């Protein structure tokens, strides 16, 4: 390690270019289709994820239509309703959120933000996308298979998932779902190794871990978690495939189906739940941590202020990641597991609120006396904070066993879950797209359309999910495809259901405006220039916009400072890029 005295920036030799390792496309096909460039792969991941997400959006409309107007739509029967629920949940959680945050944003942002030319294993990276696409196609295949997709619920609990009473249980549905998940996990592992090793080994000179933007920290930690958590789902899927195809009894207890004793016996459905939630809970944070990271960067950039408590933010991300592995059984309070476990898991669940709260305070303190620009990314970031706090607070309710048990099977859980894991990360995704779209395409998204999109989405989702808390407290059960007449649910609940459905349709329609904006701005958007937000991080300092293959032209950038030098007193501009060497008068040290 060579110690260079502060201020003698010229002593840093220029970084050497290692072009030998860089992959060079030879034809149109290898440049745009079977590309090994992380930026192209990122766009492929994003487009696929958003497309399959639209399918899930339509499914949610169908579910809402059924709940508001039961019996009115003849093509929605109980079976198809459960199929809609299952596919909506699985697609949104895994094929949209996980794939978009890690495969989409991870691929685009990691190499650019750490100053690398590309991912360290470009070939495996390309393979990762194509395997993901196969997984999506297998999943979609369920809609066309005999018997339709599985209707087991997104948690796929056995034994019902593989019995004939469940749609797809004895047909192709469950098989396609399990195979699709297995393929997805294989594909994700290839990509995940890339993201982790690129952060570890691909950083440019001067990019210490503590100089990385929080976006990279979030995606990096989430990937490590995903690599350790997805094997649980993999094992569970393989074992359930064995049970369903080969007649083993990993999860299947002795059971009578249609008056006939099945050959299974002795298996443990709770074992499946342990495996599933050992994956399932970290999955919440696999989605949330990239969102935390991105939102920190959006807030800092658009409030023109350094992030408050950067070190705390990093530590909190790491601590949340670690803690999330020991809270899984709080999804299982009603599963009949040992009640003594409940106490342990309730405690760990409440402890995880501490680092999460630290993050929220730090965001708010970053905004405090900042030069807040209410740009679209900032609006979405603010909406995220509010939504995440709302959803998180109901999480504190549900984390307690005594509160969870009566609420567990009601719409309250649906409301909580959608606020904290559905709406909140999606708002960050939108914010991130408005923020980075100019870098990806070189053009700005249309502002007016963006505002319509933002306000409809933000207020609309509240109109959808806030009343659901109330429905849940009334005791309206989730998973029921038709409420029917009950003694305890007042008729006003039905009116509320109609309202929720109308709002769901409106919010869904607003997403079409967003899609139109994405396509329209690609051709007609205002030219963005290299750094429209006047941001400090490396991806805005590329010589070309959109960045060319290899990202950095002839020489890799050298990093001299952390990612948040906004509004530094005495500096000529209100931001100092990470690549700018220290000169007298710009560092805080020099001022102090």
């Amino acid at each position, binding site marked *: *390690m060579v110690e260079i005295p502060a201020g003698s920036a010229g002593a840093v030799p220029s970084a050497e270019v290692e072009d030998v390792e860089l992959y060079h496309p030879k034809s149109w096909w290898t440049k745009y289709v079977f590309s090994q460039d992380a930026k192209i792969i990122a766009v492929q991941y994003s487009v696929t994820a958003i497309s399959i997400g639209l399918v899930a959006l339509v499914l949610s409309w169908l579910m809402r239509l059924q709940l508001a107007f039961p019996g009115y739509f003849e093509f929605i029967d109980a079976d198809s309703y459960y199929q809609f629920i299952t596919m909506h949940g699985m697609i949104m959680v895994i094929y949209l959120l996980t794939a978009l945050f890690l495969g989409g944003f991870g691929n685009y942002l990691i190499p650019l933000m750490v100053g690398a030319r590309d991912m*360290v294993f470009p070939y495996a990276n390309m393979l990762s996308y194509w395997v993901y696409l196969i997984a999506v196609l297998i999943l979609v295949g369920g809609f066309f298979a005999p018997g339709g997709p599985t209707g087991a619920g997104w948690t796929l609990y056995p034994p019902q998932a593989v019995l004939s009473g469940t749609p797809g249980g004895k047909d192709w549905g469950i098989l396609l779902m399990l195979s699709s998940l297995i393929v997805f996990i294989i594909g994700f592992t290839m990509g995940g*190794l890339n993201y*982790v090793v690129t952060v570890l*080994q691909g950083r440019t000179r001067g990019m210490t*871990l503590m100089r990385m933007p929080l976006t990279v920290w979030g995606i990096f930690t989430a990937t490590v978690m995903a690599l350790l958590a997805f094997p649980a789902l993999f094992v569970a899927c393989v074992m359930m495939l064995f049970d369903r195809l080969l007649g083993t*009894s990993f999860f299947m207890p002795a059971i009578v189906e249609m008056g006939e004793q099945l050959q299974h016996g002795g298996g443990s459905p709770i074992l499946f739940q342990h495996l599933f939630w*050992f994956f399932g809970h970290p999955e919440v944070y696999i989605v949330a941590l990239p969102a935390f990271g991105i939102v920190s960067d959006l807030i800092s950039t658009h409030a023109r202020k350094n992030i408050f408590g950067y070190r705390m933010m990093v530590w909190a991300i790491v601590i949340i990641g670690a803690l999330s592995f020991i809270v899984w059984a709080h999804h299982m309070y009603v599963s009949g597991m040992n009640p003594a476990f409940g106490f342990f898991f309730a405690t760990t669940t409440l402890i995880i609120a501490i680092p999460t709260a630290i993050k929220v305070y730090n965001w708010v303190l970053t905004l405090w006396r900042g030069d807040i620009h209410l740009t679209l990314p900032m609006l979405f970031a603010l909406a995220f904070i509010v939504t995440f706090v709302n959803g998180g607070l109901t999480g504190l309710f549900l984390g307690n066993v005594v509160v969870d048990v009566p609420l567990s099977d009601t719409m309250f859980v649906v409301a909580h879950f959608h606020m904290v894991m559905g709406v909140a990360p999606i708002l960050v995704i939108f914010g991130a797209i408005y923020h980075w779209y100019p870098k990806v395409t070189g053009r700005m998204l249309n502002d007016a359309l963006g505002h319509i999109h933002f306000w409809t989405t933000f207020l609309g989702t509240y109109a959808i999910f806030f009343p659901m808390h109330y429905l849940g407290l009334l005791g309206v059960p989730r998973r029921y495809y038709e409420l029917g007449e009950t003694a305890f649910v007042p008729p006003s609940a039905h009116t509320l259901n109609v309202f929720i459905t109308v709002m769901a349709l409106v919010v869904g329609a607003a997403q079409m405006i967003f899609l139109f904006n994405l396509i329209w701005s690609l051709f007609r958007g205002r030219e963005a220039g290299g750094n429209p937000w006047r941001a400090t991080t490396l991806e805005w300092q590329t010589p070309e916009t959109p960045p060319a293959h290899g990202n950095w032209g002839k020489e890799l950038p050298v990093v001299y400072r952390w990612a*948040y030098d906004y509004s530094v007193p005495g500096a000529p501009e209100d931001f100092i890029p990470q690549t700018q060497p220290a000169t007298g008068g710009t560092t805080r040290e020099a001022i102090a």
Partner: protein
Amino acid sequence: MNVTLFFLTAVGAVIAWWMAGQRLTSKPWLEASPAQTTIAGRKDPPAPAVKIGLYVFLGVVGALFSLSISAYFMRMESADWWGMPLPRLLWVNTALLASGSVALQWAKREVRHGRMEALRLALVAGFILGALFLAGQIEAWRQLSAAGYLLTDNPANSFFYMLTGLHGLHILGGLVVVGRTTVRAFAADAPSARLRLSAGLCTVYFHFMLAVWLILFALFAGWANDFVDLCRQLLS
């Protein structure tokens, strides 16, 4: 899930140890100078990315097997569990896999000294021993099913077939890489840096898979049970 948590604790310890060397307590906002830019712990030349990639991958494989083993123990508690006898052949297979590991270790040594002839021999030996292990595992399956220990009869059988199958697939993947390295060793006249790296990584991978196999073997043979009982008593 104790096995899994134990494994994750180990992984967590590695991560914590690594992070401890990354100056996570530094104050980056005070460091606008290149003085601290040399990344702590990164020596010249930095470790090759493939090597780090392999270690991360081994973490994933480790998680996969520790989760399976957790499931094994949890399922074992139910009343319908009958242990199955292990065919003698498994001892032979264990010996084969162990000697395959030794052969690759030998290859790693030879490539360092630049002795190509010995390297090729060692790689071929490693490949053949690994392939024989796989053949032996399949033969063990055949013997067991011929003796009436079918997949579906009992959860112990199911786990045996599933875990050996999962392990076998990982060995198969390893063999593909060893095969490619062998081909490259025959094509080259002198050991390149890349060949040296490949040989080293194959060795690490096979050692790891040998360790996994030994644990699985202990599990199937029932030796692990006493150990687990002991742990349970200590915990409760």
